[in-house]
Protein backbone atom coordinates (compact mmCIF):
# COMPACT_ATOMS: atom_id res chain seq x y z
CA UNK A 1 0.00 0.00 0.00
CA UNK A 2 1.43 3.30 -1.05
CA UNK A 3 1.01 6.77 0.43
CA UNK A 4 0.28 7.98 3.93
CA UNK A 5 -2.27 6.16 6.03
CA UNK A 6 -3.67 6.27 9.51
CA UNK A 7 -4.66 2.93 11.00
CA UNK A 8 -7.34 2.89 13.64
CA UNK A 9 -6.43 1.01 16.79
CA UNK A 10 -8.37 -0.56 19.56
CA UNK A 11 -7.93 1.09 22.94
CA UNK A 12 -7.52 -0.78 26.21
CA UNK A 13 -11.26 -0.70 26.85
CA UNK A 14 -11.97 -2.18 23.45
CA UNK A 15 -13.24 0.97 21.75
CA UNK A 16 -11.89 2.03 18.39
CA UNK A 17 -9.55 4.91 19.02
CA UNK A 18 -8.04 7.40 16.66
CA UNK A 19 -4.25 6.74 16.50
CA UNK A 20 -3.58 10.43 17.09
CA UNK A 21 -5.62 10.32 20.29
CA UNK A 22 -3.96 7.09 21.26
CA UNK A 23 -0.48 8.56 20.75
CA UNK A 24 -1.45 11.64 22.80
CA UNK A 25 -2.83 9.39 25.51
CA UNK A 26 0.30 7.20 25.55
CA UNK A 27 2.60 10.22 25.75
CA UNK A 28 0.52 11.69 28.55
CA UNK A 29 0.72 8.41 30.45
CA UNK A 30 4.45 8.18 29.84
CA UNK A 31 5.04 11.71 31.16
CA UNK A 32 2.98 11.00 34.24
CA UNK A 33 4.72 7.69 34.95
CA UNK A 34 8.03 9.49 34.63
CA UNK A 35 6.89 12.09 37.16
CA UNK A 36 5.83 9.28 39.47
CA UNK A 37 9.29 7.74 39.20
CA UNK A 38 7.94 4.72 37.33
CA UNK A 39 10.71 4.86 34.77
CA UNK A 40 10.32 1.46 33.14
CA UNK A 41 6.60 1.97 32.72
CA UNK A 42 7.25 5.41 31.16
CA UNK A 43 9.79 3.90 28.78
CA UNK A 44 7.39 1.20 27.72
CA UNK A 45 4.68 3.80 26.95
CA UNK A 46 7.13 5.91 24.91
CA UNK A 47 8.07 2.80 22.94
CA UNK A 48 4.41 2.02 22.22
CA UNK A 49 3.85 5.60 21.08
CA UNK A 50 6.90 5.43 18.77
CA UNK A 51 5.68 2.17 17.22
CA UNK A 52 2.27 3.71 16.62
CA UNK A 53 3.76 6.79 14.96
CA UNK A 54 5.89 4.57 12.71
CA UNK A 55 2.85 2.53 11.72
CA UNK A 56 0.86 5.66 10.86
CA UNK A 57 2.84 7.53 8.30
CA UNK A 58 0.09 10.13 8.05
CA UNK A 59 0.84 11.55 11.47
CA UNK A 60 1.94 15.15 11.09
CA UNK A 61 5.54 15.84 12.16
CA UNK A 62 5.96 12.13 12.88
CA UNK A 63 9.73 12.18 12.50
CA UNK A 64 10.19 15.16 14.80
CA UNK A 65 7.90 13.54 17.34
CA UNK A 66 9.94 10.33 17.24
CA UNK A 67 13.16 12.30 17.66
CA UNK A 68 11.82 14.04 20.76
CA UNK A 69 10.63 10.70 22.20
CA UNK A 70 14.04 9.12 21.53
CA UNK A 71 15.65 11.93 23.51
CA UNK A 72 13.29 11.32 26.41
CA UNK A 73 14.02 7.58 26.31
CA UNK A 74 17.78 8.25 26.34
CA UNK A 75 17.32 10.41 29.47
CA UNK A 76 15.18 7.70 31.03
CA UNK A 77 17.80 5.03 30.30
CA UNK A 78 20.40 7.20 31.97
CA UNK A 79 18.26 7.56 35.09
CA UNK A 80 17.53 3.82 35.17
CA UNK A 81 21.25 3.04 34.83
CA UNK A 82 22.10 5.48 37.64
CA UNK A 83 19.58 3.83 39.93
CA UNK A 84 20.78 0.34 39.08
CA UNK A 85 24.41 1.32 39.52
CA UNK A 86 23.87 2.97 42.92
CA UNK A 87 25.15 0.98 45.86
CA UNK A 88 22.34 -0.51 47.90
CA UNK A 89 24.05 0.24 51.21
CA UNK A 90 25.92 3.53 50.99
CA UNK A 91 27.52 5.10 54.04
CA UNK A 92 25.10 7.53 55.67
CA UNK A 93 25.78 10.45 58.03
CA UNK A 94 26.89 9.88 61.61
CA UNK A 95 23.56 11.19 62.85
CA UNK A 96 21.67 8.65 60.77
CA UNK A 97 24.03 5.90 61.90
CA UNK A 98 23.24 6.85 65.51
CA UNK A 99 19.55 6.55 64.70
CA UNK A 100 20.06 3.11 63.13
CA UNK A 101 21.83 2.00 66.31
CA UNK A 102 19.10 3.40 68.51
CA UNK A 103 16.22 1.93 66.54
CA UNK A 104 17.59 -1.45 65.58
CA UNK A 105 19.84 -2.48 68.46
CA UNK A 106 16.80 -3.56 70.43
CA UNK A 107 18.36 -3.03 73.83
CA UNK A 108 16.96 0.36 74.79
CA UNK A 109 19.10 3.32 75.75
CA UNK A 110 21.22 1.65 78.40
CA UNK A 111 24.93 1.85 77.69
CA UNK A 112 25.98 -1.66 78.65
CA UNK A 113 28.29 -3.88 76.64
CA UNK A 114 25.53 -6.01 75.17
CA UNK A 115 23.75 -2.92 73.83
CA UNK A 116 27.01 -1.63 72.43
CA UNK A 117 27.49 -4.94 70.67
CA UNK A 118 23.94 -4.95 69.34
CA UNK A 119 24.35 -1.37 68.13
CA UNK A 120 27.46 -2.29 66.19
CA UNK A 121 25.65 -5.31 64.74
CA UNK A 122 22.76 -3.07 63.62
CA UNK A 123 25.23 -0.81 61.83
CA UNK A 124 26.78 -3.81 60.08
CA UNK A 125 23.36 -5.07 59.02
CA UNK A 126 22.69 -1.72 57.34
CA UNK A 127 26.05 -1.89 55.59
CA UNK A 128 27.74 0.81 57.72
CA UNK A 129 30.85 -1.35 57.93
CA UNK A 130 33.50 1.28 58.73
CA UNK A 131 31.70 2.55 61.82
CA UNK A 132 30.65 -0.98 62.81
CA UNK A 133 34.27 -2.15 62.56
CA UNK A 134 35.56 0.65 64.77
CA UNK A 135 32.89 -0.15 67.38
CA UNK A 136 33.62 -3.89 67.27
CA UNK A 137 37.33 -3.09 67.65
CA UNK A 138 36.60 -1.22 70.88
CA UNK A 139 34.53 -4.15 72.15
CA UNK A 140 37.55 -6.44 71.84
CA UNK A 141 38.63 -4.95 75.18
CA UNK A 142 35.57 -6.35 76.89
CA UNK A 143 36.07 -9.97 77.85
CA UNK A 144 32.45 -11.24 77.72
CA UNK A 145 31.90 -9.98 74.17
CA UNK A 146 35.46 -10.35 72.81
CA UNK A 147 34.82 -13.46 70.73
CA UNK A 148 31.49 -12.15 69.44
CA UNK A 149 33.12 -8.83 68.49
CA UNK A 150 36.00 -10.60 66.75
CA UNK A 151 33.66 -12.86 64.80
CA UNK A 152 31.62 -9.84 63.76
CA UNK A 153 34.75 -8.03 62.59
CA UNK A 154 35.49 -11.07 60.45
CA UNK A 155 31.88 -11.10 59.23
CA UNK A 156 32.07 -7.47 58.13
CA UNK A 157 35.08 -8.33 55.98
CA UNK A 158 33.44 -11.50 54.69
CA UNK A 159 30.31 -9.55 53.73
CA UNK A 160 32.37 -7.55 51.24
CA UNK A 161 34.34 -10.67 50.25
CA UNK A 162 37.55 -9.33 51.80
CA UNK A 163 38.62 -12.85 52.81
CA UNK A 164 42.30 -12.02 53.01
CA UNK A 165 41.55 -9.07 55.32
CA UNK A 166 39.51 -11.35 57.60
CA UNK A 167 42.46 -13.77 57.74
CA UNK A 168 44.87 -10.91 58.48
CA UNK A 169 42.68 -9.77 61.38
CA UNK A 170 42.84 -13.27 62.83
CA UNK A 171 46.64 -13.31 62.54
CA UNK A 172 46.76 -9.98 64.34
CA UNK A 173 44.67 -11.43 67.20
CA UNK A 174 47.02 -14.41 67.47
CA UNK A 175 49.72 -11.97 68.63
CA UNK A 176 47.27 -10.07 70.81
CA UNK A 177 47.54 -10.90 74.52
CA UNK A 178 43.87 -10.23 75.05
CA UNK A 179 42.89 -13.51 73.36
CA UNK A 180 43.24 -16.92 75.01
CA UNK A 181 44.01 -19.99 72.91
CA UNK A 182 40.48 -21.25 73.45
CA UNK A 183 39.03 -17.98 72.15
CA UNK A 184 41.34 -18.06 69.13
CA UNK A 185 40.27 -21.62 68.38
CA UNK A 186 36.64 -20.54 68.33
CA UNK A 187 37.35 -17.69 65.94
CA UNK A 188 39.58 -19.85 63.74
CA UNK A 189 36.95 -22.56 63.60
CA UNK A 190 34.33 -20.01 62.59
CA UNK A 191 36.57 -18.44 59.94
CA UNK A 192 37.66 -21.74 58.45
CA UNK A 193 34.03 -22.75 58.09
CA UNK A 194 33.21 -19.51 56.27
CA UNK A 195 36.28 -19.80 54.05
CA UNK A 196 35.30 -23.35 53.13
CA UNK A 197 31.77 -22.26 52.24
CA UNK A 198 33.10 -19.48 50.01
CA UNK A 199 35.74 -21.67 48.36
CA UNK A 200 38.55 -19.49 49.74
CA UNK A 201 41.66 -21.49 50.57
CA UNK A 202 43.83 -20.09 53.31
CA UNK A 203 45.70 -21.72 56.17
CA UNK A 204 45.16 -20.02 59.51
CA UNK A 205 47.65 -20.05 62.31
CA UNK A 206 47.02 -22.79 64.85
CA UNK A 207 48.74 -22.75 68.24
CA UNK A 208 50.88 -25.75 69.18
CA UNK A 209 48.36 -27.55 71.38
CA UNK A 210 46.30 -28.49 68.34
CA UNK A 211 42.76 -29.60 68.99
CA UNK A 212 41.65 -33.11 68.10
CA UNK A 213 38.63 -33.80 65.91
CA UNK A 214 36.72 -34.70 69.05
CA UNK A 215 37.61 -31.39 70.68
CA UNK A 216 36.65 -29.65 67.49
CA UNK A 217 33.15 -31.11 67.67
CA UNK A 218 32.89 -29.95 71.25
CA UNK A 219 34.09 -26.54 70.19
CA UNK A 220 31.40 -26.34 67.56
CA UNK A 221 28.83 -27.13 70.20
CA UNK A 222 30.22 -24.56 72.59
CA UNK A 223 30.65 -21.81 70.06
CA UNK A 224 26.89 -21.35 69.83
CA UNK A 225 26.61 -20.54 73.52
CA UNK A 226 29.92 -18.92 74.30
CA UNK A 227 29.57 -16.35 71.52
CA UNK A 228 26.80 -14.88 73.56
CA UNK A 229 27.86 -12.51 76.27
CA UNK A 230 27.66 -14.10 79.68
CA UNK A 231 26.82 -12.39 82.91
CA UNK A 232 29.98 -11.48 84.77
CA UNK A 233 30.84 -9.81 88.05
CA UNK A 234 29.66 -6.24 88.04
CA UNK A 235 28.38 -6.38 84.51
CA UNK A 236 24.73 -6.51 83.61
CA UNK A 237 23.33 -9.88 82.66
CA UNK A 238 22.21 -10.49 79.11
CA UNK A 239 19.21 -12.59 78.46
CA UNK A 240 17.49 -13.62 75.29
CA UNK A 241 19.40 -11.24 73.05
CA UNK A 242 20.89 -12.18 69.75
CA UNK A 243 24.46 -11.08 69.84
CA UNK A 244 25.96 -11.72 66.46
CA UNK A 245 25.13 -11.50 62.82
CA UNK A 246 23.91 -15.09 62.48
CA UNK A 247 20.60 -14.05 60.99
CA UNK A 248 22.32 -12.29 58.11
CA UNK A 249 22.36 -15.71 56.53
CA UNK A 250 19.85 -18.46 56.38
CA UNK A 251 21.14 -21.93 57.24
CA UNK A 252 21.38 -24.60 54.58
CA UNK A 253 18.09 -26.40 54.27
CA UNK A 254 19.65 -29.77 54.98
CA UNK A 255 21.15 -28.55 58.26
CA UNK A 256 19.21 -28.27 61.48
CA UNK A 257 17.80 -24.82 61.95
CA UNK A 258 19.02 -22.73 64.85
CA UNK A 259 16.40 -23.09 67.55
CA UNK A 260 16.02 -20.07 69.82
CA UNK A 261 13.36 -21.47 72.08
CA UNK A 262 11.01 -24.40 72.40
CA UNK A 263 7.41 -24.84 73.43
CA UNK A 264 6.72 -27.92 75.54
CA UNK A 265 3.22 -29.21 76.19
CA UNK A 266 2.92 -30.10 79.86
CA UNK A 267 1.49 -33.57 80.18
CA UNK A 268 0.84 -33.77 83.93
CA UNK A 269 0.20 -31.67 87.02
CA UNK A 270 -1.80 -28.48 87.50
CA UNK A 271 -0.46 -27.02 84.24
CA UNK A 272 -1.44 -30.07 82.20
CA UNK A 273 -2.33 -29.14 78.63
CA UNK A 274 -0.46 -25.84 78.74
CA UNK A 275 2.42 -24.92 76.46
CA UNK A 276 5.51 -23.65 78.28
CA UNK A 277 8.10 -21.73 76.28
CA UNK A 278 11.76 -22.14 77.26
CA UNK A 279 14.88 -20.50 75.85
CA UNK A 280 17.51 -22.74 74.30
CA UNK A 281 20.84 -22.33 76.04
CA UNK A 282 22.85 -23.98 73.29
CA UNK A 283 22.37 -26.31 70.37
CA UNK A 284 24.42 -28.78 68.46
CA UNK A 285 22.72 -30.44 65.50
CA UNK A 286 19.52 -32.01 66.76
CA UNK A 287 20.45 -31.72 70.44
CA UNK A 288 19.39 -28.72 72.45
CA UNK A 289 20.11 -27.72 76.01
CA UNK A 290 17.79 -25.76 78.27
CA UNK A 291 18.36 -24.29 81.72
CA UNK A 292 15.33 -24.65 83.99
CA UNK A 293 15.07 -22.80 87.27
CA UNK A 294 14.94 -24.95 90.41
CA UNK A 295 11.75 -23.04 91.29
CA UNK A 296 9.96 -24.81 88.41
CA UNK A 297 9.37 -27.93 90.53
CA UNK A 298 6.33 -29.21 88.70
CA UNK A 299 7.88 -28.67 85.31
CA UNK A 300 11.07 -30.42 86.38
CA UNK A 301 9.09 -33.41 87.62
CA UNK A 302 7.35 -33.65 84.25
CA UNK A 303 10.66 -33.62 82.42
CA UNK A 304 12.51 -36.68 83.66
CA UNK A 305 15.23 -38.32 81.58
CA UNK A 306 13.62 -40.51 78.91
CA UNK A 307 10.36 -38.52 78.80
CA UNK A 308 8.99 -38.47 75.28
CA UNK A 309 7.78 -34.97 74.35
CA UNK A 310 5.13 -34.94 71.70
CA UNK A 311 3.56 -31.70 70.45
CA UNK A 312 6.72 -29.66 70.81
CA UNK A 313 7.19 -26.35 69.04
CA UNK A 314 10.60 -25.23 67.84
CA UNK A 315 11.04 -21.49 67.36
CA UNK A 316 13.79 -20.57 64.94
CA UNK A 317 14.48 -17.10 63.52
CA UNK A 318 12.91 -18.16 60.23
CA UNK A 319 10.08 -20.51 61.15
CA UNK A 320 8.05 -22.18 63.84
CA UNK A 321 8.18 -25.94 63.53
CA UNK A 322 6.05 -28.56 65.23
CA UNK A 323 7.68 -31.80 66.22
CA UNK A 324 8.70 -34.11 68.99
CA UNK A 325 11.71 -34.80 71.17
CA UNK A 326 13.00 -36.85 74.03
CA UNK A 327 14.70 -35.77 77.27
CA UNK A 328 18.17 -37.33 77.08
CA UNK A 329 19.77 -35.75 80.11
CA UNK A 330 18.90 -33.84 83.27
CA UNK A 331 21.55 -32.64 85.68
CA UNK A 332 21.56 -30.17 88.52
CA UNK A 333 24.09 -27.34 88.12
CA UNK A 334 26.54 -27.51 91.03
CA UNK A 335 28.25 -24.12 90.81
CA UNK A 336 28.16 -20.69 89.21
CA UNK A 337 25.35 -18.17 88.85
CA UNK A 338 22.87 -20.90 87.90
CA UNK A 339 23.73 -23.13 90.85
CA UNK A 340 20.80 -25.30 91.85
CA UNK A 341 19.06 -24.93 88.49
CA UNK A 342 18.77 -27.82 86.07
CA UNK A 343 20.44 -28.39 82.72
CA UNK A 344 18.17 -30.35 80.43
CA UNK A 345 19.25 -32.05 77.20
CA UNK A 346 16.61 -32.75 74.58
CA UNK A 347 17.14 -34.62 71.34
CA UNK A 348 14.85 -33.47 68.55
CA UNK A 349 13.22 -36.49 66.97
CA UNK A 350 10.98 -35.00 64.30
CA UNK A 351 10.17 -31.52 62.99
Amino acid at each position, binding site marked *: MKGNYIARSVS*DNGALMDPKDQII*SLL*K*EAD*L*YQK*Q*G*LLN*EAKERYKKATDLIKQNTGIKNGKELIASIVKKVVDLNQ*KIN*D*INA*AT*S*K*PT*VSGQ*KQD*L*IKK*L*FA*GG*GDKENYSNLLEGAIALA*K*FGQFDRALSEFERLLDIEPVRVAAAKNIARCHLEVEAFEEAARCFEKWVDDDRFTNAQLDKIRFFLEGRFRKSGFERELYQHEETVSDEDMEKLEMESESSDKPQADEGLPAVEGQEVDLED*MELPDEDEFLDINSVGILIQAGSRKGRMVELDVSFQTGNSINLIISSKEGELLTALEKGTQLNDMQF*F*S*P*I*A*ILNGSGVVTGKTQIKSGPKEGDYSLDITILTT
Partner: protein
Amino acid sequence: MATFNFKNREIECKIVYYGPGRCGKTTNLEYIFKTYKKQITGEMVSIDTEGDRTLFFDFLPMGLGKIKGCDVKVQLYTVPGQVQYSSTRKLVLKEVDGLVFVADSLEVRREKNMLSLKDLHENLKSYGTSIFKVPLVMQYNKRDLEEEGIPLMPVEKMNNDLNRQLKAPYYSASAIKGKGVPQTITECLKLTLLNLQKQLKWAK
Protein backbone atom coordinates in the same frame (compact mmCIF):
# COMPACT_ATOMS: atom_id res chain seq x y z
CA MET B 1 6.96 -6.55 69.46
CA ALA B 2 5.87 -3.49 71.41
CA THR B 3 7.71 -2.56 74.57
CA PHE B 4 5.66 -2.00 77.68
CA ASN B 5 7.18 -0.26 80.65
CA PHE B 6 5.00 -1.35 83.56
CA LYS B 7 6.65 1.09 85.97
CA ASN B 8 6.05 4.22 83.90
CA ARG B 9 2.87 2.86 82.30
CA GLU B 10 4.34 3.55 78.88
CA ILE B 11 3.81 1.53 75.74
CA GLU B 12 5.77 1.90 72.51
CA CYS B 13 4.67 0.18 69.33
CA LYS B 14 5.88 -0.05 65.76
CA ILE B 15 3.79 0.46 62.63
CA VAL B 16 5.29 -0.21 59.23
CA TYR B 17 4.10 1.11 55.86
CA TYR B 18 4.78 -1.59 53.27
CA GLY B 19 4.17 -1.69 49.53
CA PRO B 20 5.83 -1.64 46.11
CA GLY B 21 8.32 1.02 45.10
CA ARG B 22 6.88 4.48 44.37
CA CYS B 23 3.43 3.62 45.74
CA GLY B 24 3.38 6.55 48.20
CA LYS B 25 4.54 5.16 51.57
CA THR B 26 6.85 8.12 52.26
CA THR B 27 4.13 10.53 51.06
CA ASN B 28 1.81 9.07 53.71
CA LEU B 29 4.36 9.75 56.44
CA GLU B 30 5.09 13.24 55.09
CA TYR B 31 1.41 14.09 55.27
CA ILE B 32 1.14 12.77 58.83
CA PHE B 33 4.25 14.76 59.78
CA LYS B 34 2.79 17.96 58.31
CA THR B 35 -0.70 17.50 59.67
CA TYR B 36 -0.39 16.04 63.17
CA LYS B 37 2.14 18.46 64.66
CA LYS B 38 0.72 17.97 68.16
CA GLN B 39 1.27 14.24 68.12
CA ILE B 40 4.68 14.30 66.43
CA THR B 41 7.42 13.95 69.01
CA GLY B 42 10.50 14.28 66.80
CA GLU B 43 11.75 14.97 63.32
CA MET B 44 10.86 12.74 60.40
CA VAL B 45 14.04 11.05 59.23
CA SER B 46 14.32 9.76 55.69
CA ILE B 47 17.27 7.78 54.47
CA ASP B 48 16.81 7.99 50.74
CA THR B 49 18.76 8.08 47.50
CA GLU B 50 19.19 10.88 44.99
CA GLY B 51 16.23 9.66 42.98
CA ASP B 52 14.00 10.19 46.03
CA ARG B 53 13.70 6.48 46.56
CA THR B 54 13.69 5.26 50.15
CA LEU B 55 16.96 3.51 50.72
CA PHE B 56 16.79 2.15 54.27
CA PHE B 57 13.63 3.50 55.87
CA ASP B 58 11.68 6.61 56.88
CA PHE B 59 11.06 7.09 60.55
CA LEU B 60 8.51 9.23 62.34
CA PRO B 61 7.95 9.15 66.12
CA MET B 62 4.51 9.99 67.51
CA GLY B 63 2.97 10.29 70.93
CA LEU B 64 -0.73 9.63 71.29
CA GLY B 65 -0.90 10.76 74.92
CA LYS B 66 -2.64 8.80 77.63
CA ILE B 67 -4.95 6.03 76.54
CA LYS B 68 -6.62 4.11 79.37
CA GLY B 69 -3.99 5.33 81.80
CA CYS B 70 -1.07 4.44 79.61
CA ASP B 71 1.25 6.75 77.72
CA VAL B 72 1.19 5.48 74.13
CA LYS B 73 4.12 6.10 71.82
CA VAL B 74 4.17 5.03 68.21
CA GLN B 75 7.04 4.65 65.79
CA LEU B 76 6.04 4.88 62.13
CA TYR B 77 8.38 3.36 59.55
CA THR B 78 8.35 2.85 55.82
CA VAL B 79 10.33 0.13 54.07
CA PRO B 80 12.25 0.61 50.83
CA GLY B 81 9.92 -0.56 48.10
CA GLN B 82 12.46 -1.35 45.39
CA VAL B 83 12.85 -5.09 44.85
CA GLN B 84 16.65 -5.04 45.36
CA TYR B 85 16.38 -3.82 48.97
CA SER B 86 14.90 -7.05 50.21
CA SER B 87 17.22 -7.56 53.20
CA THR B 88 16.66 -3.99 54.45
CA ARG B 89 12.91 -4.43 54.13
CA LYS B 90 13.10 -7.51 56.29
CA LEU B 91 15.18 -5.73 58.94
CA VAL B 92 12.70 -2.87 59.19
CA LEU B 93 9.80 -5.29 59.45
CA LYS B 94 11.26 -7.03 62.50
CA GLU B 95 8.99 -6.90 65.57
CA VAL B 96 6.26 -4.98 63.76
CA ASP B 97 3.02 -4.42 65.69
CA GLY B 98 0.82 -3.04 62.92
CA LEU B 99 0.95 -2.76 59.15
CA VAL B 100 -0.35 -0.49 56.43
CA PHE B 101 -0.06 -1.99 52.97
CA VAL B 102 -0.03 0.84 50.43
CA ALA B 103 -1.04 -0.39 46.99
CA ASP B 104 -0.57 1.65 43.83
CA SER B 105 -3.86 2.11 41.98
CA LEU B 106 -2.18 2.52 38.59
CA GLU B 107 -3.16 -0.34 36.33
CA VAL B 108 0.46 -0.79 35.22
CA ARG B 109 1.46 -1.50 38.85
CA ARG B 110 -1.04 -4.31 39.42
CA GLU B 111 1.54 -7.08 39.37
CA LYS B 112 3.98 -5.11 41.55
CA ASN B 113 1.30 -4.75 44.22
CA MET B 114 0.74 -8.48 44.28
CA LEU B 115 4.46 -9.26 44.38
CA SER B 116 4.98 -6.82 47.24
CA LEU B 117 2.15 -8.35 49.25
CA LYS B 118 3.66 -11.79 48.65
CA ASP B 119 7.03 -10.45 49.81
CA LEU B 120 5.41 -9.09 52.99
CA HIS B 121 3.76 -12.43 53.62
CA GLU B 122 7.07 -14.28 53.20
CA ASN B 123 9.04 -11.86 55.36
CA LEU B 124 6.52 -12.13 58.17
CA LYS B 125 6.62 -15.91 57.86
CA SER B 126 10.40 -15.82 58.21
CA TYR B 127 9.90 -14.11 61.58
CA GLY B 128 7.51 -16.84 62.61
CA THR B 129 4.38 -14.77 62.29
CA SER B 130 1.47 -14.77 59.89
CA ILE B 131 0.07 -11.96 57.78
CA PHE B 132 -3.33 -12.99 59.12
CA LYS B 133 -2.26 -12.31 62.70
CA VAL B 134 -0.67 -8.86 62.41
CA PRO B 135 -3.12 -5.92 62.42
CA LEU B 136 -3.24 -4.79 58.80
CA VAL B 137 -4.95 -2.01 56.86
CA MET B 138 -4.95 -1.79 53.06
CA GLN B 139 -4.68 1.56 51.34
CA TYR B 140 -5.38 1.94 47.61
CA ASN B 141 -3.39 5.04 46.82
CA LYS B 142 -3.18 7.52 43.94
CA ARG B 143 -6.93 7.60 43.29
CA ASP B 144 -6.53 11.28 42.30
CA LEU B 145 -4.87 10.21 39.04
CA GLU B 146 -8.25 9.16 37.74
CA GLU B 147 -8.89 12.85 37.03
CA GLU B 148 -5.85 12.87 34.75
CA GLY B 149 -7.37 10.14 32.59
CA ILE B 150 -4.71 7.60 33.57
CA PRO B 151 -5.87 3.98 33.70
CA LEU B 152 -6.46 2.97 37.32
CA MET B 153 -7.56 -0.33 38.78
CA PRO B 154 -11.11 -0.21 40.15
CA VAL B 155 -11.08 -0.42 43.96
CA GLU B 156 -13.22 -3.59 43.88
CA LYS B 157 -10.73 -5.26 41.57
CA MET B 158 -7.80 -4.25 43.78
CA ASN B 159 -9.61 -5.58 46.77
CA ASN B 160 -10.22 -8.80 44.94
CA ASP B 161 -6.54 -9.05 43.94
CA LEU B 162 -5.05 -8.22 47.30
CA ASN B 163 -7.60 -8.49 50.04
CA ARG B 164 -9.86 -11.39 49.10
CA GLN B 165 -8.46 -13.66 51.77
CA LEU B 166 -7.08 -11.12 54.20
CA LYS B 167 -10.35 -9.21 54.51
CA ALA B 168 -8.48 -6.28 56.07
CA PRO B 169 -10.11 -2.85 56.36
CA TYR B 170 -9.32 -0.85 53.21
CA TYR B 171 -9.32 2.79 52.18
CA SER B 172 -9.08 4.66 48.90
CA ALA B 173 -6.51 7.38 49.19
CA SER B 174 -4.59 10.16 47.58
CA ALA B 175 -1.63 10.53 49.92
CA ILE B 176 -0.33 13.56 48.04
CA LYS B 177 -3.58 15.37 48.82
CA GLY B 178 -3.95 13.78 52.24
CA LYS B 179 -7.16 11.99 51.31
CA GLY B 180 -7.58 8.69 53.12
CA VAL B 181 -4.32 9.09 55.04
CA PRO B 182 -5.88 9.95 58.43
CA GLN B 183 -8.48 7.20 58.10
CA THR B 184 -5.79 4.64 57.28
CA ILE B 185 -3.49 5.49 60.19
CA THR B 186 -6.39 5.84 62.62
CA GLU B 187 -7.72 2.40 61.73
CA CYS B 188 -4.27 0.85 61.90
CA LEU B 189 -3.61 2.40 65.32
CA LYS B 190 -6.97 1.22 66.57
CA LEU B 191 -6.38 -2.36 65.44
CA THR B 192 -2.81 -2.38 66.71
CA LEU B 193 -3.67 -1.06 70.16
CA LEU B 194 -6.60 -3.46 70.48
CA ASN B 195 -4.29 -6.32 69.58
CA LEU B 196 -1.65 -5.18 72.07
CA GLN B 197 -4.30 -4.80 74.73
CA LYS B 198 -5.24 -8.45 74.16
CA GLN B 199 -1.61 -9.54 74.36
CA LEU B 200 -0.27 -7.32 77.13
CA LYS B 201 -3.45 -6.43 79.04
CA TRP B 202 -1.97 -2.96 79.47
CA ALA B 203 -5.25 -1.13 79.77
CA LYS B 204 -6.42 -3.10 82.79
